[in-house]
């Protein structure tokens, strides 16, 4: 057995720990005191709006950027002392990279394979991301999605224990995205690897990540499994009621009088309620609509999703910022 498997095995250890991380540029604070712990063997997702500091955080963890303040420990090592060792044990895709344009897919993979002392073969990597058909194609002629898959394959070349993927599925079609999820899951489940990824797709985070952290303005503002985060809102369902002139019929007091309503929002045509128990809330809403003799045009309920949490949290932050 490989000696690394022992270290990286799912012993409940910590693969990555950031404490009080700060990254300041001349006029912006990209990361403003961020604490983070990623457990060995989990897939961790960093979510957050554009400019929140995800890439900066991840690049500090990869040893590419030096933090202004704070400490990072990766696989129980740190970048000042064990950089060489660390580089052979992490795999990385950057948010934006263009590789050597004139090389073929196989030649590029062969290069990455050569860089590691213990590496997968180029053929194995091609198979993992299903790029065998494109093995002989030059990088410059690949589609965006094929380049992304190649980037993931290159990240896996050195049999890493820890994988950093910065927006690995941005721009991929739904099919390719799902097949990349499988690649990532297999890395976690079969190789016992740890994954830290960023994404703007909430469904992806829900489907793939064991835990997610939501970052805004360089700080971690929420942390937990997608399920925990959703239930932290104190409600599990969204009810949407469509009727013309509905906003005039319900004032805030009327909405708050409805049973089990946690949050509400209203436009002229649509009333959106976040509720604990739809079987209590829905009949009450319908009675109220009938009482005001509005013509109901549609009614739907759905489970609350991570996206609602995200909008709730980061949206509120935006308002806080404006109020100042």
């Amino acid at each position: 057995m490989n000696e690394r498997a022992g270290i990286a095995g799912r012993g409940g250890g910590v693969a990555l720990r950031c404490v009080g991380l700060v990254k300041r540029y001349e006029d912006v604070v990209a990361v403003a005191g961020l604490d983070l712990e990623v457990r060995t063997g989990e897939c961790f997702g960093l979510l957050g709006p554009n400019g929140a500091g995800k890439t900066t955080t991840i690049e500090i963890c990869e040893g590419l950027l030096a933090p202004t303040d704070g400490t990072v420990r990766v696989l129980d090592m740190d970048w000042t002392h064990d950089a060489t060792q660390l580089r052979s044990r992490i795999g990385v895709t950057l948010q934006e990279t263009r590789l050597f344009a004139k090389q073929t897919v196989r030649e590029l993979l062969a290069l990455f394979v050569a860089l590691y002392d213990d590496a997968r073969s180029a053929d194995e990597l091609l198979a993992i991301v299903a790029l065998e058909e494109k093995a002989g194609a030059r990088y410059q002629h690949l589609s965006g999605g094929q380049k992304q898959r190649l980037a993931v394959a290159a990240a896996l070349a050195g049999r890493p224990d820890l994988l950093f993927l910065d927006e690995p599925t941005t721009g991929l079609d739904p099919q390719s995205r799902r097949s990349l999820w499988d690649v990532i899951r297999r890395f976690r489940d079969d190789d016992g690897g740890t994954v830290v990824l960023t994404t703007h797709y909430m469904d992806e985070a829900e489907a793939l990540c064991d835990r997610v952290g939501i970052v805004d303005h360089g700080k971690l503002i929420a942390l937990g499994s997608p399920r925990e985060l959703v239930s932290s809102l104190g409600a599990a369902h969204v009810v949407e009621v469509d009727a013309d002139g509905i906003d005039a019929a319900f004032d805030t007091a009327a909405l708050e009088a409805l049973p089990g309503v946690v949050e509400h929002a209203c436009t002229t045509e649509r009333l959106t309620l976040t509720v604990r128990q739809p079987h209590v809330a829905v009949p009450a809403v319908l009675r109220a609509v009938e009482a005001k003799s509005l013509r109901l045009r549609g009614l739907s309920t759905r489970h609350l999703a991570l996206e609602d949490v995200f909008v709730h949290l980061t949206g509120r932050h935006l308002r806080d910022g404006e109020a100042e």
Partner: protein
Amino acid sequence: MTRRFGMRPRVMRALTGVAWREYLRTPEAVFWTYGFPLVMALVLGFAFGEGRQEPAHVGVVATAPAGTSFAEKLREHGGGRLHVEVVEESRARRALTLGRVDLVVRGDAEHPAFELDPARPGSELARLLTEDALASVRGEPRPVRATIEAVDEPGDRYIDFLVAGLIGLNLLGAGIYGIGYNLVLMREKHLLRRLAVTPLGRGEFLLSYVASRIVLAMIPPLVIVAFAWAVFGVPVRGSFLALLGLFLLGSFTFCGIGLLVGSRTQSTETVSGLMNVVMLPMWLLGGVFFGNERFPELLQPIVRTVPMTWLTDAIRGVMLGSLETGGIAIAAAVLGAIGLLCFCLAFKLFRWT
């Protein structure tokens, strides 16, 4: 175990392969390295190579007494070496400025007045030829002029001088573009960033990248020498091996300069400016297209500092026998020292991000 500062042959081979393929699969780059110097040699070699003498262009101002017939006479007595045309007074100065004529003549055969730009190389010749023709018009005997022996032996012509310059330019381009610009391009594409998070060592990367380019850069100078020999009979009088050694050394020096220029520049726009600053003095003062010994005293310190001067001098020294062995050795030592200095600095300054 990874050796951060050790060199792994497997890695060096892989990177060298990538660098070579990257170059060879870019036809434009191949054209510029091979096509450009050869076309330049052809054009300049033929333009200045043959013993043909350009006629001197003289403009006779039309308002002068008997303007047209005066021009006729001058043309007649010019012996085929004077190209005479009649110009309007209002256009005369302009024709001179634009170089359409080398000399403007006013007045008549008895009282001629010349207008010329003494800084221009053709104007003295035009003056001499015109004075001869005027004397002939006046019926005076032509002044005695020494016989002229044209210099067109291989080894003494302009093309013989030029070949070393073209080789120098080629090596300069390979170093500055091939290494410097490409490095910045790779940084701009975040490709260096991507390599930085692998166990690839800085030494492994820089050395294999530079070595692969140096080897590539050795080929075009050999092609230029072969071409110049085949087409113009440009000789290699000294040791061929010494010539090869100079190509290697020149390539090393310019690659070092290229590496330094690209060691931490962030954008291709910035590096373009930097490259021009480095290359311009080499083009102008490095003895590429014309000898630099007669540049003003003030410029001589710069002339003697640019590595191009040392390289072109040494190459001419070997090819044309214009320099003693000692002189060539000194030039080689200077080149090597400059190259080594640049390499060490670049290695220290280099940044992946």
